[in-house]
């Protein structure tokens, strides 16, 4: 770190790194550790966006000229890319695009049919994008909402009998400490056995924990492309029967085969379109294909993405654990690690870290109920890794925080 006088911003020295070439645009002075909020976009994704805008900027699903046909092909490939990533078949599942995870969850939960379900089941550690719509959905359907605990390993703690005709909505990976829904398969099986459905919030799982979701039987999986190296976009992967059962409230262009004075016919063989009223974010959808392809082939440091991330996660977890005065929220290493210092405000630490070029998050990360009300914790400081991250980044973050903690104590 070069110092330019007491009150001017320090110019971090450029560090020679083994960063993936796809992120070579990144300012070497910045250590971005907020991938859980939004991942950095690799160059191929940026290129896909630019290519759409500059060479075939047409509406999808409705035009006959060449650009439009290309858009349709690319969008179909994007849907296919998502199914491929999850190992799911298009015969049972359809892919819809929307704004983000939150919107996807709401589109499903607020349009579920009346009379079919007996309760909404979720857990205490859910993000507000699950926690809040489960409240409104229970209210709309006139059924109770049940809050369950999650074990330290992330498993949902439930008695199967309580899953009777349940709408189970839980995350596959936590945005606080990365814990995984380790009993996903059991949960889906037990819920289905009792006439219920499982809707997964896969916002944190899609980027780095896809193994858990492979070939899942869950009824719907919602996630955000912007947390998995894509452009800003929400994705809903849902069983065709679930989509067909919805009491549609959001309707519009692109969803119908025919319209009369007081009625309409929905598109017969395109259940994915039922959640896509109006024109879509074509460039972002097409860029998602760029992201899914990229995730499949990228080898940071010659390793698989999961290997690269677990090496970085271990290093970050171990080194943060050694800083005196810091309490780890995570029970184990994960690409998402939260900590807090009893004597230092996390927001302050985040502002101070930013001065050294470290971009980390502070606060309750939309899990207020769990962190603030249930655990009574102060605002946390969160570091979340991405495929752009390097060992040098991890060490710089650790060094900066260790120095701050020492100086401030």
């Amino acid at each position, binding site marked *: 770190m070069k110092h330019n006088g007491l009150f001017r911003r320090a110019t971090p020295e450029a560090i020679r790194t083994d960063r993936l070439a796809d992120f070579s645009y990144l300012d070497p002075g910045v250590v971005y550790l907020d991938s859980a909020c939004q991942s950095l976009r690799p160059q191929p994704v940026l290129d896909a966006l630019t290519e759409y805008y500059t060479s075939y900027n047409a509406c999808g699903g409705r035009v006959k000229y060449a650009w439009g046909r290309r858009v349709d092909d690319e969008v179909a490939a994007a849907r296919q890319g998502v199914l491929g990533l999850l190992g799911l078949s298009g015969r049972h599942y359809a892919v819809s695009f929307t704004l983000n995870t939150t919107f996807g969850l709401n589109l499903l939960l607020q349009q579920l049919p009346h009379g079919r379900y007996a309760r909404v089941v979720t857990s205490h550690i859910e993000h507000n994008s699950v926690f809040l719509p489960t409240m409104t959905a229970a209210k709309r359907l006139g059924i109770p909402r049940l809050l369950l605990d999650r074990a330290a390993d992330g498993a949902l703690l439930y008695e199967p009998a309580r899953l009777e005709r349940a709408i189970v909505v839980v995350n596959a990976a936590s945005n606080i400490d990365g814990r995984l829904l380790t009993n996903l398969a059991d949960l889906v099986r037990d819920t289905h056995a009792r006439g219920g459905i499982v809707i997964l919030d896969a916002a944190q799982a899609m980027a780095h924990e896809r193994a858990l979701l492979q070939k899942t039987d869950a009824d719907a999986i919602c996630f955000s492309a912007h947390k998995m190296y894509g452009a800003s976009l929400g994705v809903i992967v849902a069983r065709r029967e679930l989509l067909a059962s919805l009491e549609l409230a959001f309707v519009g262009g692109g969803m119908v085969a025919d319209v009369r004075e007081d009625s309409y016919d929905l598109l017969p063989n395109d259940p994915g379109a039922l959640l896509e009223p109006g024109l879509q974010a074509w460039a972002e959808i097409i860029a998602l294909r760029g992201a899914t392809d990229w995730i499949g082939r990228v080898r940071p440091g010659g390793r698989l993405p999961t290997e690269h991330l677990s090496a970085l996660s271990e290093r970050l977890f171990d080194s943060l654990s050694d800083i005196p005065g810091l309490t780890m929220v995570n029970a184990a290493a994960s690409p998402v690690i939260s900590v807090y210092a009893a004597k230092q405000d996390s927001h302050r630490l985040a502002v101070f870290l930013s001065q050294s070029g470290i971009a980390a998050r502070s606060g309750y990360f939309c899990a207020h109920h769990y962190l603030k009300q249930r655990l009574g914790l102060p605002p946390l400081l969160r570091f979340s890794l991405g495929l752009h991250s390097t060992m040098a980044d991890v060490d710089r973050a650790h060094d900066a925080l260790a120095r701050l903690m020492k100086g*401030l104590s």
Partner: protein
Amino acid sequence: MFCIAAFIVLLFMAAISARYRRYLAKAASCTLRRVTFRPCDTTFKQDLKDHMLAPLAARRPGLVGPASVALEVVAFLVVLTTIWSGYVVVESAANLYVYGTCNKQDSASCSLGAEACSIPDQTPTFGESLAAWDVVGAFGNDFVRLGETFSAIPSRMQNWDASEYLPANATYLNGPDAKKETALEVIDPGCTYCLQLFQNIEKAGFADRRNLSYIAFPIQSATGYKFPNSLLVTQYLEALRLNPLADAKTPVDWQILKRIYTEENDEGVSWQSVINGADSAETTALLQEWAQEFGLSRAQVDTVASVAGSTEVAQVIAHNKTLVEERIHTVKIPTIIFDGRRHDGLVSVDDLD
């Protein structure tokens, strides 16, 4: 406190740059909550402080603690000085309106008022009280002064009629004429602004159009009189009014005033300066010499000299002092009442026309 200070500082910054208006609104809501004693929007306060401290934290994290305390102290001082300066502005504005000076205690030090010789206030100033560790007195006296100023506002707004404030035995520069309006000046023979006012009056032909009279008011100071011979001259002026010279076209007291204010000795020094620099024997000699020159006999001069030192004259002077301080309420000499208004300090030829 921090929010309030931030609001004050941002108020100035927002006036200069639109960039800060966003924060200003935040600081305002934060301040309003604080003012009504609801918990402040801590994240705003915290955020602001943290961003200010961040450059230091990156270099010397150990100094963040003390710097944070220093910021709070600075915030406290910003608020304190703002409240104080607001108070001073209100007080000065009220004083300027009521007394024609922003500093009632020492009007000559106020550059906003008309030029004048101030009548000093004998109570200690705020600073003097503080220096003497009399904090209660410092604030107390200041509030009393402000109270006096506010209570004098109605008198400032009234319609001033000089004839209501005439002293006993009033004399007029140009014999009184029932058709003319009365004008009255409060003067100190030694005050140079009174000299200038008199010269302006002459240039404007003011006394030709009005019945001009005066109250001689020797300004007191902590140790005696501001101009050492002013009391003596006033005593003679009052004695001359009590013993007017029959048939004099211009009353002798006025002739003496006119000499002091408009004429010079052989060396070109104004008589006012001569008297201000003379001792009382020299002054007495001059006054007696002039009285004779203006038509008094030696015997009449002797009478005047003895009346000048009498209790009767002392009572007249005391009465006039009360008149000036408690009815006219001025702190500036000269003050002149005409055209329904009280004019504090020097009045220009144009304004006298």
